[in-house]
């Protein structure tokens, strides 16, 4: 099997334009005849649902939350990048493109990333037009701040709630289209399977989480906008409900899963405080604009109050190791550095798993009111969770799982290898390589939803006239029956262990063996442990209640069942990639200074995995990464 990314010919900066000039179009009268199924209502899902509906398609949109406004995009704090260069600090589309490629450790597809950078400016225009209240300067113009991995200020923000405001923008647009009858919205509806008819994605199976009813829906194309799989680690900054089920089910129906081992560990989260904990809370990376990261130089000082540790006994390790980027070093590098100092015994707080993020200097320089204006809600949140006042005492932070760069494989059109199945936002693999820069997830979700997919979908739709499939096709019945059987099986195990206990155990295996640092031995151990845990799950799960009506344990059990298979795929991918790059750090492959050591000769490819059956190893399909514009370089932030 070979993969064709369908990248348009021509010079890099002309590819998107020439694509649009020659892309297949569907006329308005014909758009009405097509039903598009969209799963997920976050930035990518709601933006594409609204935009396709504006264009005239008939859209059905599904989300597992009780309202599309609650999708997890809402939790993004820091901001969204765009190459507007409103600050006149030397930014450009090319620079945003290059920073993103470099930030991704040269493991992303050049043409996709350039397109993303080109579209970035339109996104800001679009958001302002729909009423997103971005931060402004007194003159009334838009304000910017800087973010990790960049030396320019190109991040637009709305206090510490940028994701919320962007999502409410897409939700407004979606609501408008629902009111006009162009979108039919299904809330509390969880996708359980993909329906493939004659090799094309033509529908989905859905469980109504209120009634328990399992039904199928037919459409002319399916868009998965279902986010990432960070919850495979149990503890992450993701919402409780985030899961891999939609993309994993598609994988089991033949879609390739690309680079599952690329996970992002965010450097600034509130440290874990106990076994009972259900999630980790992120403190926006924007805090690193003004906060300085440090730990004591000597282990003996770790238990002291931070104010009692004099300046010369502090190790501002990011500033020391990466003088030109300092506290704004990219996420993977900052996280690994925090782990390093904690492994060295110099961590602070309970269990020694924390480092300080100190605002004393910034408060002295700018005044408390400025810091309050910039990060007030974050400080409040920190105070509420830890009971500590970060204006007085430095925050304690530690890395936590935050984002997943891997996802279903897609071509330039955002279509997977299953014709008709398109994948947008975090759910696909395409734009961030091995590490995502801050403020780029919102950019990609909205780019895919507002501008990319609405232009590329025509390529597929134009080939689908007169090929309508309805839900009476045998593939639909087969899929519905298999989902029903699976739900019944989960209910009928009647063992002794709760869903969460399995999830926690899986999470611990993943964090220990496939987390911030990985090695062959650990990954092999994980690959032995996960199948055993999975076997126990299917024989010893305790699940009360029935499949009819609301049963949240049942919902979680289905998701954990998929994580228990998916975790293995992640480890397999991590084991295959004998190099370190971005968020994937294999301890065997590092420079003498402890930096990631890439192997471009052997691993400059997208690793796409093809499902071959339960308990059979998946096959690896490689898409070589061809760089026409960029010269591969060792990533340096020194």
């Amino acid at each position, binding site marked *: 099997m070979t993969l064709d990314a369908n990248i348009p010919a021509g010079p890099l900066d002309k590819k998107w334009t020439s694509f649009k000039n020659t892309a297949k179009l569907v006329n308005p009268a014909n758009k009405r005849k097509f039903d598009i199924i969209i799963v997920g209502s976050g930035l990518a899902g709601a933006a594409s649902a609204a*935009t396709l509906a504006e264009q005239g398609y008939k859209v059905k949109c599904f989300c597992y939350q009780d309202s599309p406004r609650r999708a997890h995009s*809402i939790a993004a704090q820091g901001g969204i990048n765009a190459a507007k260069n409103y600050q006149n600090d030397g930014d450009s589309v090319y620079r945003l493109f290059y920073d993103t490629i470099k930030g991704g450790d040269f493991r992303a597809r050049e043409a996709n990333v350039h397109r993303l950078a080109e579209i970035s400016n*339109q996104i800001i225009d679009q958001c302002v037009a*729909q*009423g997103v209240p971005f931060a402004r300067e007194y003159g009334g113009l838009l304000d910017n701040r800087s973010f990790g991995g960049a030396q320019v200020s190109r991040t637009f923000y709305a206090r510490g709630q940028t994701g919320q405001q962007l999502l409410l923008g897409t939700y407004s647009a979606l609501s408008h289209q629902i009111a006009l009858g162009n979108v039919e919205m299904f809330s509390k509806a969880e996708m359980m399977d993909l329906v493939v008819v004659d090799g094309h994605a033509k529908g989905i199976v859905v469980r109504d989480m*209120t009634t328990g009813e399992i039904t199928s829906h037919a459409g002319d194309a399916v868009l998965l906008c279902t986010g990432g799989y960070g919850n495979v680690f149990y503890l992450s900054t993701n919402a409780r409900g985030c899961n891999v089920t939609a993309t994993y089910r598609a994988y089991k129906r033949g879609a390739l899963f690309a680079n599952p081992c690329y996970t992002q560990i965010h450097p600034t989260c509130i440290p874990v405080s106990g076994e009972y904990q259900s999630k980790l809370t992120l403190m926006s990376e924007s805090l690193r604009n003004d906060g300085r990261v440090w730990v004591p130089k000597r282990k003996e000082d770790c238990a002291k109050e931070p104010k009692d540790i004099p300046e010369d006994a502090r190790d501002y390790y990011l500033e020391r190791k990466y003088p030109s980027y300092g506290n704004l070093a990219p996420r993977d590098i900052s996280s690994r550095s925090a782990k390093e100092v904690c492994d060295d015994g110099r961590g602070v707080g309970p269990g020694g798993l924390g480092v300080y993020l100190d605002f004393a200097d910034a408060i002295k320089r700018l005044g408390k009111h400025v810091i309050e204006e910039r990060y007030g809600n974050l400080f409040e949140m920190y105070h509420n969770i830890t009971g500590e006042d970060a204006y007085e005492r430095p925050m304690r932070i530690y890395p936590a799982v935050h984002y997943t760069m891997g996802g279903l494989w897609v071509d330039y059109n955002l279509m997977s290898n299953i014709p008709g199945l398109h994948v947008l936002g975090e759910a696909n693999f395409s734009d961030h390589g091995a590490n995502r820069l801050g403020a780029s997830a919102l950019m990609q979700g909205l780019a895919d939803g507002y501008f990319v997919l609405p232009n590329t979908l025509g390529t597929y739709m134009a080939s689908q006239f007169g090929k309508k499939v309805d839900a009476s096709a045998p593939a639909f019945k087969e899929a519905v029956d298999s989902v029903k059987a699976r739900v019944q099986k989960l209910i009928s195990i009647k063992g002794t262990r709760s869903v969460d206990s399995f999830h926690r155990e899986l999470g611990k295996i993943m964090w220990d063996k496939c987390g911030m640092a990985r090695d062959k031995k650990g990954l092999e151990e994980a690959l032995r442990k996960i199948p055993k845990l999975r076997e126990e799950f299917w024989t010893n799960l305790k699940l009360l209640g029935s499949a009819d009506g609301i049963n949240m344990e049942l919902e979680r059990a289905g998701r954990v069942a998929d994580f228990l298979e998916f975790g293995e795929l992640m480890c397999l991918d991590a084991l295959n990639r004998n190099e370190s790059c971005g968020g994937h750090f294999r301890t065997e492959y590092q420079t003498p200074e402890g930096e990631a050591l890439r192997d471009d000769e052997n691993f400059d490819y997208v690793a796409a995995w093809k499902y071959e059956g339960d308990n059979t190893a998946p096959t690896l399909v490689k898409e070589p990464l061809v760089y026409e514009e960029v010269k591969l370089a060792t990533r340096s932030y020194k």
Partner: protein
Amino acid sequence: MKFYLEVWRQKGPESGGKLEHYEANNIPAEASFLEMLDIVNEDLTAKGIEPIQFDSDCREGICGNCSLTINGVPHGPGRGTTCQLYMRKFRDGQIITIEPFRADSFPVERDLVVNREAYDRIMQAGGFISERAGSAPDANSVPIPKVVADVAMDAAACIGCGACAAACPNGSAMLFVSAKVTHLGLLPQGKPENDRRVLSMVRQMDKEGFGNCSNYYACEAVCPAGIPASFIAGMNRAYSFASIKESVGIPL
């Protein structure tokens, strides 16, 4: 810590419900309220009792999904969402009553889970700026004074949780509606549709069965996003002007 819980249990939307007594044992003070319920649910599962069903998702105070009435107050003591409430706020050995959000327009679906689709329908009635992707002018082409943008942001911070309606003796959703009307109404981009917006959203709110505001300010007291009740006054004014225009036949 130890707590004595009185929890609302209800099989389905049609069946009656009642408070059941449970004990919450060995709860760390650092646990959040929802994590306390997770621990109780593990206990119940071990004893063969169906776990308590309650909504939550982001667990960081922004998605607006969690919706518990704790000791009679939506989201409980303090001013934040249920998920941002920590057990150290309670006394060891305290009795805690946990019910769903109570409002006629939020029917209970099961235990502590309510249906808040009414809020979605109010948004669909007019909570948007009609604009299509790709048609926008440059983002800096219309300067917006910082003070205006800041108030718009204050209003836009609403998380749509429904605590306002649950706290209001009239079951009024006016704080929620006024937040959206204020947010979009202040911005130059939203102004062309102001009259239509306020009329349709308020009418939909009435249709959903929400009551009107009679200045109790209970909504403001429980709002986790800090939306001030003064927005309601602004909305009433906008509504009056729009309905006068409509009644004398000025096209909106």
